């Protein structure tokens, strides 16, 4: 796609792929390599440039999304008096060592100095928190920015947008909801969910013991083969913007006497792997029905594990278990289970953990 924008005062008309982020276009197409790429996920701040005068992350800004924008990179501040003062202060206060963070740090610091003027050290450190430096320990950086900001007045606030009088409807009240059901306490990467089934324990267990039928009740699960205890299958997940699918194998054990079953499985998706265990038990429930207890534990390895936040999963598993139970109930009652949608237990967990990125 063609994108027309201004970089450091010069107009450019460039052909870029939609997937190209602004930093890559600056570095690879325009050879403006002063913009550094560290994490490429918006955390480290090394790629910070000005877009229309405001510091932004060029690694999570698509170049095609900058049509008409005025971009200023570290190369574009030669004649800028604030930046000149900052450069000198960074040198005087030893505010850099390797220099990798410095372009982003300077762009951020300039914005802080202009926007806030002289401010407290606490506020300054807070404002600089989005730019990581692994050399200096920040002391020199804070000293440098403090020196440049000294005596300056904050920039005037933007003009207030006029609010138009318009008749707004009264706020909606949320539908009445039942209190959150109580779950067993979960420690580490393990949790338990209990769901009431209308089916009697015998009927529910009989249905659960038939793995092929069970698989049709678990949204998104597809069972490819069963050989003795060994099962192979695949699961897909669609959760917000995250879509993943992975193939895995597992082993299943069933105990008729206690009406318990256990599936131990593992799967891979790219460089990451997940392994986990699902246990289930059918207990007599109220009114001739039964209670399905589902216990789940899992472990993630690989590059994606760092984003994991175990507590996130609980809410999703609760919803999944309820859906599973509804499908199982329908099946036991002789109704056809609804068509499987791409949402699986392990994949669900996995997708969730993977989604723990910059979800703001």
């Amino acid at each position, binding site marked *: 796609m063609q994108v027309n924008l201004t970089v450091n005062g010069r107009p450019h008309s460039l052909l870029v792929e939609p997937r190209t982020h602004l930093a890559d276009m600056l570095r690879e197409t325009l050879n403006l390599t002063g913009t550094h790429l560290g994490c490429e996920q918006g955390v480290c701040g090394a790629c910070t440039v000005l877009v229309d005068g405001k*510091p932004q992350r060029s690694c999570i800004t698509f170049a095609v999304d900058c049509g008409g924008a005025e971009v200023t990179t570290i190369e574009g501040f030669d004649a800028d008096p604030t930046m000149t003062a900052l450069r000198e202060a960074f040198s005087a206060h030893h505010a850099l060592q390797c220099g990798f963070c410095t372009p982003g740090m300077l762009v951020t610091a300039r914005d802080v100095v202009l926007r806030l003027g002289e401010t407290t050290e606490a506020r300054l450190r807070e404002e600089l928190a989005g730019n990581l430096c692994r050399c200096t320990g920040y002391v020199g950086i804070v000293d440098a920015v403090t020196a440049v900001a000294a005596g300056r007045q904050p920039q005037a606030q933007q003009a207030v947008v006029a609010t138009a009088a318009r008749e707004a409807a009264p706020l909606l009240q949320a*539908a009445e909801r039942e209190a959150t059901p109580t779950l067993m306490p979960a420690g580490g990467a393990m949790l338990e969910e209990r769901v009431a089934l209308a089916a009697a324990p015998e009927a529910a267990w009989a249905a659960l013991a038939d793995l092929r039928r069970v698989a049709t009740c678990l949204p998104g699960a597809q069972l490819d083969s069963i050989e003795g205890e060994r099962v192979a299958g695949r699961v897909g997940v669609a959760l917000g913007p995250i879509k993943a699918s992975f193939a895995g194998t597992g082993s299943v054990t069933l105990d008729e006497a206690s009406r318990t079953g256990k599936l131990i499985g593992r799967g891979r998706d790219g460089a990451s792997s997940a392994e986990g265990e699902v246990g289930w038990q059918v207990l007599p429930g109220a009114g001739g029905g039964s209670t399905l207890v589902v216990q789940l534990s899992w472990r993630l390895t690989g590059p994606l594990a760092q984003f994991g936040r175990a507590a996130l999963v609980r809410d999703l598993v609760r919803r999944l278990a309820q859906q599973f139970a509804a499908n199982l109930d329908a099946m036991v009652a002789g109704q056809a289970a609804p068509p499987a949608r791409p949402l699986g237990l392990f994949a669900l967990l996995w997708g969730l953990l993977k989604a723990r*990125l910059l979800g703001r």
Partner: protein
Amino acid sequence: MKAAAFDYRSAGSVAEAVALLAEGETRVLAGGQSLGPSMNLRLARPQRLVDVKRVAELRDVAADDAVCRLGAGWTHAEIEDGAMADFSQGMLAQVAHGIAYRAVRNRGTLGGSLAHADPAADWVNTVVALGGTLVVQGPSGQRRVASEDFMLGAFTTALSGDEVLVAVELPRLGAQARWGYHKLCRKTGEFAKAIGVAVLDPGSGLARVLAGAVEGKPVTLPQTAERLREGGPAAALALLPEEAEARLAHLAPNERALRVVAVRRAIEAMAEG
């Protein structure tokens, strides 16, 4: 890593965005401060993005004496800077200030954050704490969803695939209103470990207390809120542990304790303010 290939379309209006979404396999791109990282890591691989950044309607602001309607396209930084007349006694500006980092706030939007529905996101918790309403537009027009019914779970909302979140309606807080917002983070700008929010507006009778962040929908604490209305912050604090025990029973004790601390500090901040 770099994002997988996708098609990019820029919408000039909400109706155009909705029409593009209806064609399928399309996701809305607002600020892209959550979607961008997900795509760079190849966790999200949308086939097509429809960019709503240039849709003027998403920056409408309307208000009467009770409710303010804020377009979904405002950035966190604009709200932080007070780009629109304040109707929240300073609450929205302070919440916005606490979101991530300035470079992210300059691009990320109110509506994008709500539609992404990360449980730890500030707007998700703030809008529910204020009892707001979300305005959503699809092929058959606009509908309004109560904030408590909007988020179904982590990263999951009541939005269907061909709907765009266009605005948020929030109550106007009166001059007597007090609020407290506290989030527990180990590092500035990171995801909250727990969020506590308390709002009391004697003029309108609005009293809300919320424990948020981590695993799913924010949890409201209606009994503590009722105590807040009747007896003020001290009375609310007295009831908080008991109600939290019941309403947050699904959490591990350490996680529950974090929520209680966040809510307590929010209520205390309100008493000081």
